[in-house]
């Protein structure tokens, strides 16, 4: 590989477009991961400690599915999911084609983090809410989600950062965005400068999201 840097090769317009694509993928996939992963996490949490044996069995099944989805390397997941992706968004490439695998890869991951956060909530507080006549639903959204908000935000931050690396990986299979740029120019055409710029942009994105996440966690922590 040639490490002579020549930044004149860099096409900044293309970078602007790629960054926008990455952000688009990231935005949509984060949103859908949140929408799917949060309820999934709550369900895992509730079923695991349910007094009904049936629900506890359902928990075991769901738990295995979540583990399977989490154990498949993302690059393989994208390829394996192509038929499903086509069914959902009518394409398996580009920004649109990447969103389903991104969500399917990240939602179970986020759900586990949600489940772990919810378990951290003091049992005594839940008991107090029960004693006050709160319904299960009220306990979930007025007590458990509220009490674990800092943990949920931290978990979501980790998930979004994982999604950034997933979007970059999707460059290998025609996903678009900064990953594609880095692969096409940096790897196939030895334009190291392009790859470096892509890396820097991705690092900046990760840092930014981590900082925002940390700030929010501190803001919502009352202990």
């Amino acid at each position, binding site marked *: 590989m040639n490490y002579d840097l020549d930044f004149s090769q860099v096409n900044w317009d293309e970078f602007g477009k790629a960054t926008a694509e990455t952000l688009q993928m990231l935005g949509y996939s984060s949103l859908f991961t949140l929408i799917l992963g949060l309820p999934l996490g709550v369900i895992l949490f509730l079923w695991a400690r349910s007094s009904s044996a049936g629900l506890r069995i359902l928990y075991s099944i769901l738990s295995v599915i979540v583990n399977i989805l989490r154990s498949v390397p993302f690059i393989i997941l994208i390829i394996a999911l192509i038929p499903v992706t086509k069914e959902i968004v009518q394409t398996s490439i580009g920004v649109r084609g990447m969103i389903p695998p991104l969500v399917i890869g990240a939602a179970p991951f986020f759900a586990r983090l949600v489940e772990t956060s919810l378990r951290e909530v*003091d049992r005594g507080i839940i008991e107090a809410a*029960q004693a006050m006549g709160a319904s299960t639903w*009220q306990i979930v959204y007025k007590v458990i989600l509220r009490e674990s908000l800092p943990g949920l935000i931290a978990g979501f931050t980790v998930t979004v950062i994982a999604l950034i690396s997933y979007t970059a990986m999707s460059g290998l299979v025609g996903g678009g965005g900064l990953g594609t740029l880095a692969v096409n120019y940096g790897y196939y055409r030895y334009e190291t400068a392009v790859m470096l710029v892509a890396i820097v942009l991705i690092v900046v994105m990760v840092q930014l999201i981590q900082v925002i996440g940390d700030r929010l966690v501190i803001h919502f922590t*009352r202990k």
Partner: protein
Amino acid sequence: MITIKNLVKTYTSGSKTTTALNGINLDIGKGEIFGIIGHSGAGKSTLIRCINMLEQPTSGSVWIGETDMTRLGKSQLQRQRRRIGMIFQHFNLLSSATVYDNIAFPLRLERMPRTEIDRKVKEMLELVGLTEHAKKYPAQLSGGQKQRVGIARALATDPNVLLCDEATSALDPQTTDSILRLLLDINRKLGLTIVLITHEMHVIQSICDKVAVIHGGIIAEQGPVIDVFLKPKEAITRDFINRESDTGEALNEAIRAPHPESSRTVKVTFIGDLTYQSIMSQTVKETGVEFAILQGTISRIKDTPYGQLVVRFEGPAESIERTLKRLVEQRLEVEELQ
């Protein structure tokens, strides 16, 4: 007000069954402060949790007024629980909510209108003396203040019953006393029935009207605090009382100490107004015997003063006999010790 009949609670884990409560019967009157004392593992926590069905009893019934709590459906139970306040050893406040929001929490569960919630929360803040702390978070409060928030939250829905689960066990002695005074105050002001569990006789002695001693999942002894405290029948009860004063050994030593041949050692108990009268000195003046005080307590159980003296009377046998008779005639309780 609360009637517990043949309450049994067993836990099964695998093939092993443990019995936490083994046939509990209790009658708790309206407006009473009823204490349940027991060591950890005696079943007291399970018992208080069976009252509002945080623990589902295995058999038996729990009546609150006209309602059998064990027969309620899910939503009926939720409605009933809103009429039963509960406070906890570790307070169990929402750490993410301010003092104000913690107290408003049970009212919001009932979807009370906002202005009414505001009025009620302010009333409760005043009752527990935390008005200026309304905007603080629990982490910024002391233990005693947290328990006051717990009490305000429990009382916000105007319950008829307040359950106290070791409510003062995590607090220092001064704070414990201030919380106990608050509970007593509330009991008198609102006519609230209070059920509390504790492992400290001191708590029972300060505010309870009646007490039940629980041991090994059964009630060993129960009755008015004054009777149980001054005339304990069971070893376990005596154990709790002695731990409070830590006097058993010292007394034995005092009794064994050298003393005249013609003497008798007795425990004399004064209850109520008699406590502060000069009955002893008048009596010995009359009968001419001498006495030594080996041990003594003069204190109060809730509002009732009492005194308990272990004394050795010395003198001619017939004079001592006459002394004891005179004391009994004057309504003191006299019990001879060996």
